[in-house]
């Protein structure tokens, strides 16, 4: 995008969006929020930079985005299966009494949603539109 105003404003805004996303993803067990919302906020920060500064700024992230996605799914499944190995039902809380389980799964889910939203944007919408920016 050529507009100086939009580029400057997005550059100032994106770090705060990422910070808010991280905050929401990690504090889901205390405050309203959680993995899905935090992931979408993180993705909105990246998509803002992608729209205004072109693909070159996030090309590295774009190449690895499907690994993030698979990582989220596999870790969630692994957390469920670990409970089976320890002799409990599937997806049992492994750390009862402490919020570790909620925090860990929240971070995993937020990573996954972040990767999913960015990949959706890049592959469905980004192809032509971003190249022309």
């Amino acid at each position: 995008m050529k507009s100086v105003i939009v580029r400057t404003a997005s550059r100032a805004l994106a770090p705060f969006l990422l910070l808010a996303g991280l905050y929401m993803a990690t504090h889901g067990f205390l405050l309203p929020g959680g993995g899905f919302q935090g992931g979408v906020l993180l993705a909105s920060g990246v998509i803002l930079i992608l729209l205004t500064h072109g693909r070159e700024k996030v090309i590295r992230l774009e190449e690895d985005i499907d690994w993030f996605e698979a990582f989220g799914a596999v870790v969630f499944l692994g957390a469920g299966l670990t409970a089976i190995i320890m002799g409990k039902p599937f997806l049992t809380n492994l750390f009862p009494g402490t919020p570790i389980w909620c925090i860990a799964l929240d971070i995993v889910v937020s990573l996954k949603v972040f990767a999913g939203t960015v990949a959706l944007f890049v592959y469905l919408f980004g192809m032509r539109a971003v190249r022309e920016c």
Partner: protein
Amino acid sequence: MIKKIITLFLVLTIVLLIITGLNLEYEDKEESPWDQFVKENYEETGAVNLIEAVLLDFRGYDTFGEVMILYIAISGVIIIGKEMKKGDSK
């Protein structure tokens, strides 16, 4: 004619069901699952936010299903997108 009779019958049944449902008297003697969650939430999960505890602990299956649906959908998008990318560069 038969269709109209069946429709009338269905509408009457639904109206009757709604009226019956509105007139039911609830007895609050037994503990509902919700009361149990509210009581046991903090000791079991350590999460202050009850919604989070329900999403990730008590009803973990639901979140697991959501995550897997998202995973499958995004996988399809990525596969198709990469094929289109190959076609673009040729």
